[in-house]
């Protein structure tokens, strides 16, 4: 393997383990004497718990613990530790339940059958309360209140404003206002959540859990149980995807740890798919009203963006979402004046949380669809309209963020070229025999800089230990949940130290064994933040070894020494140098055995409120609409994206493709359908995420920039592209059929109804969904 892995298709470092089935995920683990946990969930959306009787469950042979809310410390938790009033969750309900699925009790028993049997023996009397299931009902005067501290059910509001809005609209030749609605969708990671807790003699906890944020889980679990932070060790094993859905402390973590402390036995909880879909986190449904003004020539003048987020029963990551929607609403284009107001509203639904692209898929479905509508009205090609207004390097959202590198215009040009846009789009809507193509664009953050978790530690950290046998140990809390960060971080280390990938051994995602801290995997932060930490640690090792070798060969340490091909040597006289291993030995001997260790950290400073740097991209989707059935097939998706310098092209492709799958589901088929607070389609049969037969051909090119803030110039790629897909498909559906969708998903049924001018169908479906349960599976 090359010693210069940056920019190459380096296979995953955990590829062998995953390909052979030997990679261990939480539910694969089992310990002697381990108890199996199960959760009792509320069957009603909003109720006071009048009476709870666990005696029969506790008496069942094999049951070792039955826990209810009053057993646990009454410490509320939530990710927004910076603002404690936003922390509104308890692991188990104390007085009332707020959504169907709210956790009420936990049982641990010698086996799963017994635990499930015990759940059935717990008696709960609920005193029903009126419930609210949509924004309007929740915000109406006199609406039922979910949390006493929030009598209007609006838990968070955020504003962003710059420029003279009235003047902007006043000077506009063309102003339009549209309202968009987007639905709840599931992360649908393939590995359901699981957690395994062990306690030691002092009651200290080791929690192995399917998480993307070990540090957050560590801190919140400790405070919830009244422990000090480091009396909890969180270990992240292999994680089967997260997409934002595994970045919080969850009730099963608390219950497992609590029961392990009480019984002294290891306890494991594993969720079912039904629990995941029916009660798990989801993407915020939103209603977005956007008013936008243009000059006749297409110059953007002003935008007024008002957004309501349906948060469900608890805040979760809602405060971040409420801000980010407004941030993304101001991205991509140069708005001389902009105003955003967002409100996060409680309802009696399962809470929404962070999800891939966080806030951007909603904001950009509205923004991009509206751009396409405006282009049509102004008679300007949508790509031309975008080019006219595209953000450029150095642009800013005043007091919020500054754009560093920006290849957006190049992305637009490239995607137009790749897709044959100008020729294919010359035909008007509905003229292509059911075929059409459309465009959507994105920008996304490369890590967040706002310290909502209020961590006193660095945002990322890494330690590099070089050994005299030529191997190197990399330790970092950064969490690979499938995106491939372990591989990229090792690439960065190998590149910087001039060693091979197989020379590196890695410990990651373990709060006791890796340097503090790391905020986890979210906001596309790992490559940039942990990557910079690794780079800094590697440079310390490099410097020490270079000094040794320069002394021995009398080289200029600053200009002349390189670490390459496993050697530490002169750049100009390669014979003047020694192997990496020897250099380490030399350094240790020279320092009385002191190990060669580099320590790096990364914490952003003076980078606004949002991110060190933004990615950009443009996407064109081609579709085929069956006019008679309303079925849309996506046939091809072209993406041109600026993710800075590409560190691993194969991994970048994989992220883009994954975003397209998720974005396409968002556009056409995915939706958690709710009825009276219950999720009607809580199975993969009826929650329709795209399969192998649905996927279009995907073609992607990188418009490379070199971002000075990213390691080797890199920016994010794992989340941004998802936001372009839904507006691109919606625009293509318009081009193919003439129908402009302002609500997602564009199901076959809704599209056909729209094309037939039939307004009743969507309403009819909703009404009927409330009175019919899906058929059983038609199998043999």
């Amino acid at each position, binding site marked *: 393997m090359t010693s210069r892995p940056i920019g190459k298709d380096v296979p995953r470092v955990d590829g062998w383990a995953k390909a052979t089935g030997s990679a261990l995920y939480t539910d694969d683990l089992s310990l002697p004497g381990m108890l199996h946990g199960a959760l009792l969930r509320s069957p009603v959306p909003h109720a006071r718990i009048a009476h709870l009787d666990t005696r029969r469950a506790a008496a069942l042979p094999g049951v070792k613990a039955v826990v209810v809310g009053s057993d646990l410390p009454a410490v509320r938790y939530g990710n927004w530790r910076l603002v404690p009033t936003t922390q509104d969750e308890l692991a188990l309900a104390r007085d009332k339940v707020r959504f169907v699925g709210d956790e009420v009790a936990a049982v641990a028993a010698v086996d799963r059958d017994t635990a499930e049997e015990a759940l059935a023996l717990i008696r709960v009397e609920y005193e029903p309360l009126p419930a609210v299931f949509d924004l309007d009902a929740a915000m109406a005067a006199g609406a039922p209140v979910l949390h006493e501290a929030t009598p209007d059910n609006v838990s968070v509001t955020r504003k962003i404003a710059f420029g003279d809005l009235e003047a902007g609209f006043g000077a506009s030749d063309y102003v339009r206002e549209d309202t968009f609605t987007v639905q709840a969708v599931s992360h649908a990671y393939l590995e359901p959540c699981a957690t395994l807790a062990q306690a030691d003699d002092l009651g200290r906890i080791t929690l192995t859990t399917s998480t993307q944020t070990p540090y957050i889980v560590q801190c919140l679990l400790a405070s919830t149980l009244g422990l000090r932070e480091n009396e909890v060790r969180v270990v992240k094993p292999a994680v089967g995807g997260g997409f934002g859905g595994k970045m919080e402390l969850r009730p099963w973590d608390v219950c497992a740890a609590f029961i392990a402390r009480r019984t002294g036995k290891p306890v494991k909880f594993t969720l079912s798919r039904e629990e995941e879909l029916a009660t798990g986190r989801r993407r915020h449904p939103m209603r977005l009203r956007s008013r936008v003004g243009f000059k006749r020539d297409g110059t953007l003048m002003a935008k007024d963006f008002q957004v309501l987020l349906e948060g469900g029963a608890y805040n979760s990551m809602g405060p971040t979402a409420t801000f980010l929607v407004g941030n993304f609403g101001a991205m991509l284009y140069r708005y001389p004046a902009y105003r955003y107001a967002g409100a996060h509203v409680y309802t009696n639904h399962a809470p929404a949380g962070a999800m891939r692209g966080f806030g951007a898929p909603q904001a950009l479905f509205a923004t991009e669809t509206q751009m396409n509508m405006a282009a049509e009205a102004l008679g300007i090609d949508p790509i031309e309209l975008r080019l006219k207004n595209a953000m450029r390097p150095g642009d800013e959202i005043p007091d919020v963020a500054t754009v560093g590198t920006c290849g957006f215009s190049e992305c637009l040009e490239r995607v137009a070229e790749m897709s044959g846009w100008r020729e294919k789009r010359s035909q008007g809507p509905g003229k292509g025999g059911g075929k059409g193509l459309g465009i959507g664009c994105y920008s996304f953050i490369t890590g967040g800089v706002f310290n909502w978790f209020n961590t006193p530690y660095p945002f990322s950290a890494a330690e590099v230990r070089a050994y005299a046998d030529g191997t190197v140990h990399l330790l970092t809390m950064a969490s690979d949940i499938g995106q491939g960060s372990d591989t990229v971080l090792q690439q960065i280390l190998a590149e910087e130290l001039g060693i091979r990938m197989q020379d590196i051994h890695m410990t990651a995602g373990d709060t006791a064994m890796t340097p503090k801290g790391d905020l986890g995997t979210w906001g596309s932060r790992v490559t940039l933040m942990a990557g910079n930490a690794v780079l800094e640690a590697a440079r310390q090792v490099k410097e020490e070894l270079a000094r040794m070798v320069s002394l021995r060969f009398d080289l200029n340490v600053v200009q002349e020494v390189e670490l390459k091909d496993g050697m530490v040597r002169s750049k100009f006289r390669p014979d003047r140098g020694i192997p990496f291993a020897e250099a380490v030995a030399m350094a240790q001997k020279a320092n009385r055995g002191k190990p060669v260790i580099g320590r790096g950290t990364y914490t952003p400073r003076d980078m606004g409120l949002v991110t060190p740097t933004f990615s950009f991209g443009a996407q064109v989707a081609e579709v085929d609409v069956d006019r008679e059935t309303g079925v849309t097939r996506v046939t091809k998706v072209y993406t041109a994206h600026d993710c800075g310098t590409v560190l691993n092209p194969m991994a970048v492709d994989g992220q883009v493709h994954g975003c397209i799958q998720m974005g396409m589901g968002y556009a056409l088929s995915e939706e958690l359908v709710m009825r009276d607070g219950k999720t009607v389609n809580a199975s993969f049969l009826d929650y329709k995420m795209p399969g192998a037969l649905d996927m279009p051909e995907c073609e992607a090119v990188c418009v490379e920039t070199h971002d000075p803030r990213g390691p080797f110039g890199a920016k994010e790629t794992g989340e941004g592209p998802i936001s372009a897909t839904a507006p691109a498909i919606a625009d293509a559906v318009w081009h193919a059929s003439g129908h402009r969708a302002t609500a997602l998903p564009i199901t076959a049924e809704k599209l056909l109804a729209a094309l037939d001018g039939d307004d009743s169908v969507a309403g009819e*479906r909703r009404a009927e969904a409330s009175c019919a349960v899906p*058929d*059983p*599976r038609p*199998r043999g």
Partner: protein
Amino acid sequence: MSLCKFAYHGPDTLDEVLALLAAHGPAARVMAGGTDLVVKMSRGQVAPAVVIGLKRVPGLGDLHFDPVRGLELGCMTRVSAVLEHPAVAAHYPALAEAAQATATVQIRNMATIAGNLCNASPCADNAPTLVARGASVELRSPRGHRALPLAELFRGPGQTVLAPDELLVRITVPPPRAATGFAYLSLSQRSAVDVSAVGVAAGLTLADGRVAEARIVLGAVAPTPFVATAAADALRGRNPDDAAFRAAGAAAAEACAPIGDVRASAGYRRKMVAVLVRRALERATARALGEGTARAARQAEVTP
């Protein structure tokens, strides 16, 4: 969730199966492929005290084709066996289309056609084509055996005329007829994994360039497979053309009684019946018109 607790019997002979059924009555469930029963048991929708597995009984999974007697499927014939059998591809392409539309590769490797029928789900993909082809089923019990047209097997969603001690042992499909073609089309939001929101089997026999006889059977739009008799009969004597097929589609849509659920509204299902009936009749006509056309259509549509 864990499955409900039950006693399992895996008898070696059909007589033992029937004896167990007679002994346990409604407390027992027969497990063929198990792909539906296991899900129902894990979700607590059924909780049989006894499960009688058929996998060990030899011969139940056979599939025979005879140009005179037709096609015979045992009660353990897997969906994939139908899909892969050359005689089915050659003479019963619509059956292969329905098999292809059933769930996923893995489920087709486990699930049986008989199980798909006995579950009596309104959206079972294999029922409409078999009903349209005039299939009959043989039911056995310790009391004897009886044969009945498949259409008479179904009583409602999840309900059949099978007595608690009866087992569906064989499905017989009449031999192919000259100048006759059948087709099955289904529609769902997604391409695989899925259940069909609407399924349409259509067939016709041509004589002197006109429709001599037609059959239209709909799935997922009524409590049981819906035989659109009037819509099919109105085709008799007409040219097999667009106008005739549109009329048949409209008539079938009018006659059926779909419900709305999370998969589709009643109104959408009805509209889709009209579209799919017309398209299925077009494809059936192509098949009726000649082997060459039929083969091309088969190859285009069915990939095992």
